[in-house]
């Protein structure tokens, strides 16, 4: 004989139910106050309660429908153990369907979670596979379009650059450039800009601009060749296109993943930091490939690390714009020297231009 505290609802009772004690004695289920006897046949079992852990026994008689509910966990266990055989099978059926429902519910939650997490997952995937994705997309853009893009932005900047393309130094620059870009699929144009900052930059499609300030900072033509080889590799490796793709993808996915949260200061700082990381990766890649270009062109590659030595020394005082989105010059110098040390011996003729630096 088992007694379980339960709550009874039905005709003749308060609508909010009444606490009762259910007595189970073999096959007989009865309640003493008020007097109720559950029929042997026709009792329906149902999971109830907000957490669906309770059990309801419902039955009909002449007065109407009665429902007996047990919500407390341990009481439910007691009741379950004491149920007569006829109800046991119904109960195990209920457990089976509850289990099925539970797994369905878990699946639903998983789908919902995945759906909510999708932007974050996409962002993470993008961060991991940014290089191949950007590379693939960049390859889909024809060189002709890339050239137009570069020319359009060059046309915009042209007036500010104070170009000095008719000088002896500019001719030298073009000669050196032609030597470094022999056999390239791009058509290059090298320009000399009369500006004091130590800087040089490449635009998509093969436009390379060198500041006079940079040439003044070099001590021999091989150092300038090192810088040019680096910029040429930015073009060859389509870094501008890739960085546009990466930035667009990153900001779009970032917005998607964080919504309003990511639009504040912290959000833009985070995307900026990532963009800078992409940029520094590109610089390292251009350094490494630039070194190979120098060797292929028969130019002494020592000029490249030598120039970074100069940059590193100047970093303290001169406004070296080249440094901002770039890795530390000293670090780049070390990486290049290491790479050079591992390479087999190579022959190089000194570059002919003397005196150095040329008249600017």
């Amino acid at each position: 004989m088992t007694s379980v505290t339960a709550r009874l609802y039905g005709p003749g009772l308060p609508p909010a139910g009444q606490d009762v004690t259910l007595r189970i004695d073999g096959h007989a289920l009865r309640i003493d106050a008020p007097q109720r006897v559950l029929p042997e046949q026709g009792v329906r079992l149902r999971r109830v309660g907000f957490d669906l852990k309770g059990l309801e026994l419902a039955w009909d008689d002449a007065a109407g429908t009665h429902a007996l509910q047990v919500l407390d966990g341990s009481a439910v266990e007691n009741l379950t153990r004491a149920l007569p055989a006829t109800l046991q099978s119904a109960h195990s059926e209920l457990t089976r369907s509850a289990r099925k429902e539970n797994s369905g519910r878990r699946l639903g939650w998983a789908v919902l979670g995945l759906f909510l997490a999708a932007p974050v997952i996409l962002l993470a995937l993008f961060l991991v596979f940014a290089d191949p994705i950007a590379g693939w997309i960049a390859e889909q853009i024809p060189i002709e379009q890339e050239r137009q893009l570069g020319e359009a932005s060059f046309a915009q900047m042209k007036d500010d650059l104070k170009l000095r393309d008719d000088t002896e130094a500019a001719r030298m620059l073009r000669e050196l450039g032609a030597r470094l870009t022999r056999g390239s699929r791009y058509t290059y144009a090298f320009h000399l800009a009369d500006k004091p900052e130590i800087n040089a930059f490449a635009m998509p499609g093969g436009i390379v601009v060198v500041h006079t300030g940079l040439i003044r900072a070099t001590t021999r033509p091989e150092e300038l060749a090192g810088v040019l080889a680096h910029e040429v590799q930015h073009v060859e490796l389509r870094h501008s296109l890739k960085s546009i793709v990466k930035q667009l993808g990153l900001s779009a996915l970032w917005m998607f993943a964080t919504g309003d949260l990511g639009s504040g200061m912290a959000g833009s700082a985070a995307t900026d930091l990532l963009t800078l990381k992409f940029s520094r990766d590109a610089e390292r890649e251009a350094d490494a490939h630039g070194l190979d270009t120098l060797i292929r062109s028969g130019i002494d590659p020592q000029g490249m690390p030598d120039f970074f030595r100069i940059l590193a020394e100047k970093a303290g005082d001169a406004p070296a714009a080249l440094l901002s989105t770039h890795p530390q010059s000293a670090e780049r110098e070390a990486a290049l020297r290491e790479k050079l040390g591992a390479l087999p011996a190579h022959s190089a003729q000194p570059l002919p231009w003397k005196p150095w630096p040329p008249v600017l």
Partner: protein
Amino acid sequence: MAMDVVDYEIFGNEMQYVEIELDPGEAAIGEAGAMMMMQQGIEMDTVFGDGSAQQGGLFGKLLGAGKRLLTGESLFTTVFHNEGNGKRRVAFAAPYPGKIVAVDLAELGGTLMCQKDSFLCAARGVSLGIAFQKKLGAGLFGGEGFIMQKLDGDGMAFVHAGGTLLVKDLAPGEVLRVDTGCVVAFQPSVDFDIQYVGKIKTALFGGEGLFFATLQGPGRVWLQSLPLSRLANRIVMAAPAAGGGGREEGSLLGGLGNILDGDR
């Protein structure tokens, strides 16, 4: 912990407040900010968590407070206890137009599930908990979200509903279909779920959304006629500052009628 048996009186019609009479030594807990007035002799204590029973240590308190955060209530509850000699009164006001529901938890079997954010005040000893909606559909489309508030104890508790209140007693197996968002509270014996409206045309143009909330008896349910969110929506829609331009009161002339109305 024994419950404090309190006497109360509800004043007002559409914007109500409830006055609770405390015997010496008795106390009530209130949602922070809900107190309207209190008589001399009533002391106010702010406690971290729900202030119901002695929660075990710091961790228990933090847990209680965390639960309150989830239900959208403040981290602190305020306990009002009568330190005077005679009976003293403290009043709690409803935060928006509607009705205050006085619930005797003892009559309900000790537990009430209610809409989060609807708790107003209770006799000391009533504990505020949360319950997570396990049914995905009901959580997403039931209008009450995934978290509901659970009041446990056997004293009086007061929750607040928007608009006019409907109390309905459901017989075993009786099903009531309710517009989502209109459910304020129900006994845990009631099965809360959703049901697809059934016809695509109704779903799209019927204006009731894709789902009804369904309440299956046995047990008592409390419904509100005007969920706060609906009221807020209408106000924002009608506010010129929010670009609403106003819902007209049915003028045939439309925009021209506005000029004739002369209210702007």
